[in-house]
């Protein structure tokens, strides 16, 4: 199956600053992928590269097997919801839907009209007067009504209140279930995405720190508590360690069973895992963060 997004040694610089540094990654199609990373990790840059708004400074990126933004055919296959859900404030909601019809050959007008009706949006209302949640829903409706094969959403819920957040993600899940579209959505908080995504990519300082199936990631990370010691068996990698007195708490990654009876093994949340990777990358320094710690899946 063709990957949703595949990058080979992609770098993207703005002036002297590099937003992405030799990033090589594969984001599978047919999944709901969470792209997580702290602010400035390069999430927006990666998504803008994927939708053709930007071109890589070096390296190659392909989306659904095509070069992004190569032409209208490629544009038609990818739906994009940009950060802060841009709309045209002076145009009415109905104008946006009409524009969608004019600008997209596969536009699903029936879906768009129904969706806007279900959301209770007045088509005569100007988009500039919508609430943040309504604007995000309108922008999502437009991205979905385009009938793309891949839907990219950049921080779609970051500016929404908890209720709007829940409603937005609910709409998204209905769409995914209804249309079988591949989704990549970014956030700096894993908690936003945990409920909806089944695949995770952690991007830190322009490099992939962790990527894999959410269930595999959960199954391969453990929190160990026990007496302090110097070494662990081969196949167990420490992601984060803290010591209080002679007592150690370790977050480790392993696909092997843990036999050592000295350890108390507790399950660990996805949130903790992601935070541990972020902390590890920060402590290791931006420059030599270990690239591509991919979990076998």
């Amino acid at each position, binding site marked *: 199956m063709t990957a949703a997004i595949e990058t080979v040694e992609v770098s993207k610089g703005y002036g002297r600053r590099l937003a992405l540094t030799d990033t090589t990654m594969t984001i599978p199609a047919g999944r709901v992928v969470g792209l997580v990373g702290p602010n400035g990790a390069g999430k927006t840059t990666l998504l*803008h590269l994927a*939708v*053709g*708004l*930007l*071109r890589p400074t070096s390296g190659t990126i392909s989306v659904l097997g095509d070069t992004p*933004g190569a*032409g*209208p055919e490629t*544009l*038609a296959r*990818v*739906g*994009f919801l*940009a*950060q*802060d859900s*841009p*709309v*045209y*404030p*002076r*145009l009415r909601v109905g*104008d946006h839907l*009409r*524009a*969608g019809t*004019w*600008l*997209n*050959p*596969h536009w699903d007008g029936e879906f768009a009209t129904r969706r806007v009706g279900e959301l209770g949006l007045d088509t005569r209302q100007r988009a500039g007067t919508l609430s943040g949640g309504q604007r995000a829903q309108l*922008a999502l409706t*437009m991205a979905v009504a*385009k009938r793309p094969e891949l839907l990219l959403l950049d921080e779609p819920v970051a500016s929404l209140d908890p209720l709007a957040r829940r409603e937005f993600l609910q709409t998204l899940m209905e769409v995914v279930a209804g249309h079988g579209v591949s989704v990549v959505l970014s956030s700096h908080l894993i908690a936003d995405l945990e409920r909806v995504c089944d695949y995770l990519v952690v991007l830190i300082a322009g490099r992939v720190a962790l990527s894999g199936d959410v269930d595999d990631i959960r199954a391969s990370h453990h929190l160990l508590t026990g007496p302090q010691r110097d070494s662990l068996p081969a196949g167990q990698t420490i992601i984060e360690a803290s010591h209080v007195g002679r007592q150690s708490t370790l977050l480790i990654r392993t696909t092997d069973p843990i036999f050592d009876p000295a350890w108390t093994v507790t399950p660990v949340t996805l949130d903790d895992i992601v935070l541990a990777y972020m902390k590890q990358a920060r402590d290791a320094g931006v420059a030599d963060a270990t690239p591509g710690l991919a979990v076998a899946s």
Partner: protein
Amino acid sequence: MTRFAWLQSRTQTLAFFAALAALAVAAAVTGVHLSHLYNDLVRHCEVRGNCQLGISAFTNHYNFLQGAFMLLLRLAPALIGIFWGGPLIARELEAGSYRLAWTQTVSRRRWVITKLAIVGGTAVVAAGLLTLTVTWWYRSLDSIDPNMYGVIDARDVAPIGYTFFAFMLGALLGAVIKRTLPAMAATLGVFVFVRIAVQQWVRPHLLSPLHKTMSILSVKDFGFISSNGAPVELTARGSSPPGPWELSSQLVTSSGHVATGAERAAFVQHYCPAVAAPPPFRGGPSHPVAAPPGIREAFDTCQQQAAKTFHVLVTYQPASRYWTFQWLELGIFLALGLVAAGLCFWWVTQRIR
């Protein structure tokens, strides 16, 4: 994309054409009245002879509208460039809506070409209708205007070129600067600079001018001049046939070269000693100095002698070239506008990546 470009520019287009319609009504009513006044005051007097009184009575009508229409037509290209061109792309980049526009199923090149064509086309039509209205309104006033070159930028086809250029310049600067207000300000600055540059340094060299040699005895202005205690010099200015654009009027020697200040001063020293050493000036506005006896004769003798030594060379563009200059002005600014449009296209499709 065409329909979307229309949708986006609908409000500004409708507002402009509503204002233009109001202007056209005002111009129609007063323009017809002006025609009647022209018939009464100017055309009838032409039969009888002396027209000066009739003409000045006629040209004093609608003084306010004359100024307003002229100002409007001179400002309109800049305003269209600032308010239509400047925000065209800058606002999309500044507000972030370009991320919505460029991810629909429309390539960026088609997006930019359509926007430039639709809104730019509207701007050209708007400028055309405006200059048509004002030129029509001015037609009887212009028919007795001896100096049409003075209003060449506010009549006929030139304003269409200015508008096209101003719009494309605004779009280009908006794409490059990416902020609406600075782009609008830069558009005004660059546009005014280019207009002045063309007027001052390009237009005079577009066609080689005609020359006319006049005798000093037949020029209107002949006299002497001395500034800051320098020796007294001779000065004479000729006037060309009616309606031309006079580029220069120079005093030339019989050998054909332009008389230098030293030559002119030497002439005065030699042939007009009475003028060269005038009595010291002791008066003031309330104490006029009496002319020394015999100065009138000395002046005439001096002029007679000067006519044998010097001629006045007038360099000018004849009135008959007015339309050539109109088309050249239009062509220059259309070409500049196309360059700006091309750069804008290149910048949006290649540089904003």
